[in-house]
């Protein structure tokens, strides 16, 4: 299976910004894709949906870490996925609320 170029779909709601990422997140695109979200959230909670992300590396996690400092952050990451496994190893699941799917998330 090939992975398409990474990109973000945004759902700009009044109460939150939902950013759905697609593709691989690595040092070639992590900062460029993720960091502008802090400004877009403008104080609103930021929900990162990583359910269509095939790969994330430590550069991607560093960008998420940066976002966490400026925004109220939640993530959607399915269990048994590569990304979930990677986030668990570095302990992000302890720092940031992680949900199985958007629907599970409290409003």
């Amino acid at each position, binding site marked *: 299976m090939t992975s398409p170029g990474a990109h973000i779909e945004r759902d700009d709601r009044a109460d939150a910004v939902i950013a759905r990422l697609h593709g691989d997140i*690595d040092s070639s695109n992590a900062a460029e894709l993720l960091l502008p979200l802090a400004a877009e959230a403008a104080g609103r909670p930021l929900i990162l949906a990583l359910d269509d992300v095939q790969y994330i590396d430590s550069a991607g996690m560093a960008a998420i870490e940066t976002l966490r400092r400026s925004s109220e952050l939640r993530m959607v990451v399915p269990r048994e996925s590569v990304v979930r496994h990677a986030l668990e190893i570095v302990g992000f699941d302890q720092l940031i609320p992680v949900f199985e799917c958007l629907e599970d998330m409290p409003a």
Partner: protein
Amino acid sequence: MSDPLGAADAASARGYPADGEMEGAIAGFDWPATPLGPADRWSPALRMMVRMLLANRFPLLLWWGPEYVCLYNDAYRPVLGDKHPWALGQPVREAWREIWPVLKPLIDTPFRGGPATWDDDILLEINRHGFVEETHFTIAYSPVPDETAPGGIGGVLATVHETTGKVVADRRVSVLRDLGTRSVGAKTAEEACLVAAKTLAVHAEDIPFTLLYLVDRDRKAARLAAAAGLAPGVEPGQVLPLDGAEASDCPWPLAEVMRAEAPQAVTGLATRLGGQVPAGPWADPPDTAVVIPIASNRAGFPAGFLVAGISPRLALDGSYTDFLNLVSAQVAASIANAREHEQEKERMDALAEIDQAKTTFFANLSHEFRTPLTLLLSPLEEALKDGADLSDPSQRERIGTAHSNGLRLLKLVNSLLDFTRVDAGGVTPAPRTTDLAALTDDLVSVFQSAFDGAGIELVTAIDPVGMRDVDVDMWEPVVLNLVSNALKYTLRGSVRVALRGRDDDVELSVADTGIGIAGDEQDRVFERFFRSSNEAGRSFEGSGIGLALVSELVRLHGGSIGVQSTLGAGSTFTVTVPARPSTSVPAQTVASRSSTARSRAFAADAQRWIDDGAASPDPGRDDASRAAVLVVDDNSDMRRYLHSLLGTEWRVKLASTGAEALEAARRDRPDVIVSDVMMPGIDGLHLVDRVRADAALRDLPVLHLSGRAGPEATVDGLARGANDYLVKPFSASELRARVRALLQASERAAREAQEALAGRRRAEEAAELSAALHPARNLQAVADAAFGWVRRILGAHLVTLSVAEHDEPMLRRYFAGASVPVPAIAGNLRVPAAGDAPSARVLREGTALWFEDSGAQATEFPALAGDLKALGLEALAVLPLRLASGLPFAALAVGWSRPVHFDPDLRATLERAESIVAAAAQRGQSLEVEQSATRRLESSLLAIDTRTTRLVVQARHQGADTGASVGGDWYDAVELGDGRVAVAVGDVVGRGLGAVRTAVRLRGGLGLAVLGVTDPTEALTALDRYTAAVPGAYCTTVALAVIDPDRAEVSYACAGHPPPLLVSPSGQVTYLEESRSWPLGAGPGRSGARAGRAPFPPGSLLLLYTDGLIERRREPLTAGLRRLAEAVAGNWDLPLRRLEQAVFTRLVSDGSEDDVALVAVRSTGAAPDLFCDSFHARREEQRPARQRLRAWLDDSGLPAADRDAVLLAVGEAISNAIDHASGADPTQIVTVELARRGPTLIASIGDRGHWRPGPQPGRGRGHLLMSALAQDVDINLDQGGTVVTLTFTHPERRPA
């Protein structure tokens, strides 16, 4: 749309995918807009040609119709460069506008019915990459018949083969060869530069202009020494500063290049220099020049700079840079040779100057001697004549001895004076009319009584040659010297003196039946101070200037001299001088007064040799109770004199030769021998040898007497076992005192025996120290070995070796001790040479210092007490270590942690150790210097820097453990520009700096030779030729393999080198044994040789190595080859670095006697249990790289979760590798290798970048990820880069 050309048929017929770009391009082209018209109306001939064209993999171009409209195939696209796809359908005069004048006649001829045209390596200056480029092609243009065309010919088919790479590489090899050959004899650095510039001027294609600057002694400025084509603003002799503010205003960045020790390119020449630089053979001038340091044998101190103009027609690529570096290396070698020659010449000039000063000194001195001698001789003569007052015979004898020796001295002084006059050019011939026969007869007759006394017959055959014009002052010494010489070396038989007149010449010959002269010495007897090595003459007295003087005098008078001689049978000296017959009355018919004195002096001297030579019966009281002295001297006066001096106190026995003395001593053992050193036959030194070799005489004391002063002579005698030494002249009381002392010493026999024992112990100790120091290859090792010895022998606790640094006024220190407190020495590893440390003082003053306890000499060395305390020491001895010249170069300090009394024994022991340590320290120091130079060169030999992503290359080298000097192993990997990569391993004969220099040049030469050739054998042939110009290159062995990933094939050739090892992607191991031939330069050429070929699909592995890997002593080579094959078979799938580690562990773990080099190359791609990948170090490359890995993992059959773990961990490692490597250079490559072995997966991710210390964002997290996902993470950093190896064991059971 239909397919009017049948292109799809052609494509399917040859089995190629139908999406070849040119097929589509031709099919989709707007042909109606061209003179060819719509494609469906093309003639059958054109259609057939286009199909043929497209199906062909060779570059083909078709010019159709009278306009020569261009059609071409895919293989031709690289030739067009940027002109593709525009050129399709263009008339050739547009497509190739820049070379149309050249092409037109070549195309017209076949098109108009003429023969096909063809040209080899034609030069075409084309613009296909944005600049006008030098290219070379082999072309063949053939007519294509077409019935429908008016002339029966539809167009012209061009078959082209680009040969640019080969032509340029050949040309560069010949430049280097020319440089190597022509620059051999340069005598000065300037001349070396001039020759190099002249050579480069002839080959201006690659270097349109050349400037060669030489750096001055202070490294303050560089002067333009030679140029081929002067750039504007650059004048001959121009001096450019290398430091200070002005350095930045220079046209060239010399100072920066010197600092960086690396070449630098300079662009925008016209602007920079304010004018056009010389263009060489090209129409436009270069815009770029490269400034390259010319290396010297000192780091950071280049001999000069090479400024090379870069051809505007070529890209400045890697092979261009390699070529320039080789040119610079060639110039550097030639300058280094010339500098050595200059230094040699300076030394010779200095020697000549000293020689001149000596001549003047001798001339003055000899002259001053004559006056007092005359005043001495006259009264003695009168006293002897006037015998009345000399009633006492012994008184008369004393005066007689004084007189005859005074005459002898006068003779020597005369000879010396004659000689120095000749030498100083102060002699001009002054011929006078002389009765030459009478004069000669007179001169010879003065020897008559000496001949009678010796029992030698003197025969004269003097022709009446009449009155002759001859210089009497020349003739006299010639005759006297030759006759006295003949008597001296003739022990029996006769001497015949003959004089003959011949027109304007006279010929004098003196023939003897003496000892003769050996053949190899006959040419040298006329050299100054030459003394035959095997003299068995009457006396060893003499100065070695007699014959030289004769020869010089004869030559000055326009004559000649020769000698014919047979060893043991006699010699004939023949002198011919111009002496015109004269009719005028002689001014003087007899010899002058001075000449009378001269001949009497000669005669008196000769008389003395033949006085009774035998041992005289002892005239003195033969009192057995008195000690016996045996006197040995070949001079009878001396014997008599010694007898009279010693006879009053001891029994004296006399001997006139060494043999006689030995016989006398064996017959009746004397108590002491007093012997002259220089005697014919057994001389004084040999006499000592014989005495010491004789059990009965072994401990007999020997006193040497010699006229030769100087430490060497003393050492000679004493080293051979003489007990004492006295230089003539000596006083009577001194001689008596020495003999007395020797006798007393010999009386103390018992104590002497004891001392001999002590001496043996000392000798053993010294031998132990020498043995301990022998393997020390650097100064620290010398200090360590010296410490081991002083601790055991003297109970010392610390050793410090302080050595003067070469370029700075500092001493570098090496500490060795049982426990050296690190803080105490930290600040003391370098101290100022002018400072007040005891070692600095010892080095300056050259005398040892002794501190018996820490309070000693506290006033003179205020800092010492504190230093000793810090080191835990109480006593310290500091000794100078000296060069052979006596100059101190280092200081050895020995310390004790208790007070020590330095009694004479202890001091002597230390002083003996000093000279042994000095020799080792000198050796260690010079080895260190050589090693650092060699290591620098060596590291360049063993670096591989390819940027190909089609292969992964990994090299490993291990030096021999037999010593410090490095071998001539080298390897290289060179990209050939078309996807192919050449890999070579070579081994130069010999070791050390010379071998490494040769290897550097051969490696560069091969890098050039391999470009543009299709067969590796051709490259070896080019290298054979280059070998002739590279000293030491003969018999170098090379293995060369060219890997073509496109064709999945390797071609190879070995010049005397063991065969490469090939491993297929499924693990099958074979040696590549075709195409083996002789080493470089050694065989009859390689014209018949062909390269071997083997398939090399993705995942294949090739190993090249030097024989050190497989050779073991006492073992056939086949055993080593088998061992290597076995080691590889068990590890072939591992990442290359691990594979090489495993092979080395198996084959050279116990060390090798030779250097070992191994290069492994794997073709990138995937096999079932193997994944090998390589890509450029750009961040955007990591996603495709992960995708390739993911695809392989997906096929691996591993559970999905394990595949994810591998992907995450390897992905992290890739990301890190890209960050390291791209920091240095984004064209660098990253390699990823994975091997699967059952439940274990090993992954290696490598880069050639440099680790950047300090935290990187996310790096800690990356490492955390890798550690959590892999069971083992190994990060290996070295100069070559970083390799991360991840091991995933039981990947199906990853932690939850």
